């Protein structure tokens, strides 16, 4: 029996008829050839979130971002004028990687006045101009104005820094994120600057981990042991139903109830959760900041009293989870091959004022890891069996609508890309 109302069509999925309701193929997650197309069609053409403005607090603050899927590394840096710029992380002399420490494939960050190449000492301002060439007189009519760092488009949205590697792109990130993104504008992300960031190398296609975090159908089962036995039985008996789903172009969101923060009955949770008043859903007590009472329209869109968390999936690989209790999480999935990717999970809280608040946040972060390890491991098991191709069609239920949308969207980008390269049909004159 449905606990929460569905659209008049009878299901969320049928509310978006272009999705269909049939079984889906996961060939897009196990084919090396398809992944090579995705690199160009998706990661080379869409706005990608690479960080937040708080990571660049002052002029000269920078970080690097390895983008295997797009086949490059970027440096993102704040200039003396306050502008955030991004460049391919590459010296214009003979192509050495410009900014790195010890291990050239590890990301780094810091603050500097200029970038100096380790190889021949060429120097660049943080605005990208070539400012020094070692033994410049040995070169042939070298004009330093012609050899600035190769720029990449940068845009910000609500303090999130995005890059776009498509030189022909003309869409701003605000336009790209559509009505769904616009509906989140105004949330106090800028007040939540206490950060815990996790990273994992996962042996599964990048879309499979988004799948895992874009449905809660699995939660009462895979994570059953994390609740008390009695609570666990109750949860799997109910199953999971979302409060609402919203799909908008390539992006989507699921709005969920949040019965555990705080729980109705304290016996439902672990002893340390009772003492600290925190758990998987974060601290039970909301921080005292403005902006949490009047939420932007896309957050808790059903305006439901039982609301707990909204999960936004911004295509291709960026998720934001906004929790009722006043904190948020981001997920990023950075492909490194057709069956591997780097997962980043980052928790953001209002900075704690005392030991209790600090420990509440620690418990939320530790709990996130306990769950994340189970999720990550399950994915590798899924990937290996999908690759057997013993079965090729898989049924998705109504609570898995965002998975249907994600794979359809990703396939659509690849098809559009292929069409843009298709040889035009030659119409020969009738003879």
């Amino acid at each position, binding site marked *: 029996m449905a606990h929460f109302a569905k659209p008049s069509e009878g299901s969320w999925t049928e509310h978006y008829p272009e999705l269909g309701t049939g079984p889906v193929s996961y060939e897009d997650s196990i084919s090396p050839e398809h992944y090579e197309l995705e690199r160009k069609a998706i990661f080379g053409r869409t706005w990608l979130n690479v960080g937040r403005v708080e990571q660049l607090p002052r002029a000269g603050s920078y970080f690097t971002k390895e983008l295997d899927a797009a086949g490059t590394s970027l440096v993102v840096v704040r200039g003396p004028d306050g502008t955030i710029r991004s460049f391919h992380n590459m010296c214009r002399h003979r192509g050495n990687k410009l900014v790195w420490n010890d291990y050239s494939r590890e990301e780094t960050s810091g603050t500097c006045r200029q970038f100096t190449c380790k190889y021949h000492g060429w120097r660049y301002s943080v605005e990208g101009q070539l400012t020094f060439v070692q033994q410049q007189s040995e070169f042939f009519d070298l004009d330093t104005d012609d050899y600035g760092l190769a720029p990449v488009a940068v845009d910000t949205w609500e303090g999130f820094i995005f890059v776009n590697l498509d030189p022909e792109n003309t869409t701003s990130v605000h336009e790209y994120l559509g009505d769904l993104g616009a509906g989140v504008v105004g949330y106090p992300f800028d007040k939540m600057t206490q950060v815990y960031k996790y990273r994992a190398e996962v042996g599964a296609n990048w879309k499979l981990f988004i799948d895992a975090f874009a449905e809660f159908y699995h939660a009462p089962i895979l994570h059953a042991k994390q609740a008390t036995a009695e609570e666990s039985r109750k949860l799997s008996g109910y199953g999971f139903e979302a409060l609402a789903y919203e799909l908008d172009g390539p992006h989507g969101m699921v709005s969920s109830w949040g019965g555990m923060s705080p729980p109705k009955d304290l016996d439902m949770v672990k002893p340390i959760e009772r003492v600290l008043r925190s758990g998987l859903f974060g601290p039970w007590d909301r921080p005292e900041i403005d902006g949490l009472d009047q939420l932007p329209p896309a957050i808790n869109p059903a305006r439901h009293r039982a609301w707990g968390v909204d999960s936004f999936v911004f295509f291709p690989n960026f998720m934001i989870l906004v929790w009722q209790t006043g904190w948020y999480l981001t997920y990023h999935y950075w492909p490194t091959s057709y069956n591997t990717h780097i997962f980043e999970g980052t928790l953001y809280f209002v900075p704690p004022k005392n*030991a209790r608040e600090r420990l509440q946040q620690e*418990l939320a972060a530790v709990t996130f890891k306990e769950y994340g390890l189970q999720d990550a491991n399950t994915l590798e098991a899924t990937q290996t069996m999908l690759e057997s191709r013993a079965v090729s069609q898989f049924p998705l239920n109504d609570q898995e609508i965002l998975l249907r949308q994600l794979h359809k969207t990703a396939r659509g980008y690849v098809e559009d890309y292929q069409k843009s390269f298709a040889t035009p049909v030659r119409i020969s004159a009738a003879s």
Partner: protein
Amino acid sequence: MPILPDEFGDLEPFADWSLESEAERYAKRLSSTLDELQAFYDAAFPRLEDAMAYVDQFEFTALPQSASRLLWLCYSLVNVSFPVEVWRQPRVPDSGAASLDMLIEPAV
């Protein structure tokens, strides 16, 4: 020379759990037996409220070293709570070879 504030002398035998980073705390959890985790939990859990009250005598952004060390020990208590209260083993069940590393964590 005690690591923890004088008021927490009873936790001094577990002062090796006062570790500054999540990586150290998690590694110590994995290299301990469940009995060792249980012994630490049984000693520290009843003192959690007292520890928070002690730390909160000070300005949170300017804690003396001994208060910070007490707080780190509390972070370890949080880290071992799942193994002791739920898993009954140091590792997360069904986590296989998966790992999730902390890249950034708060300074305090």
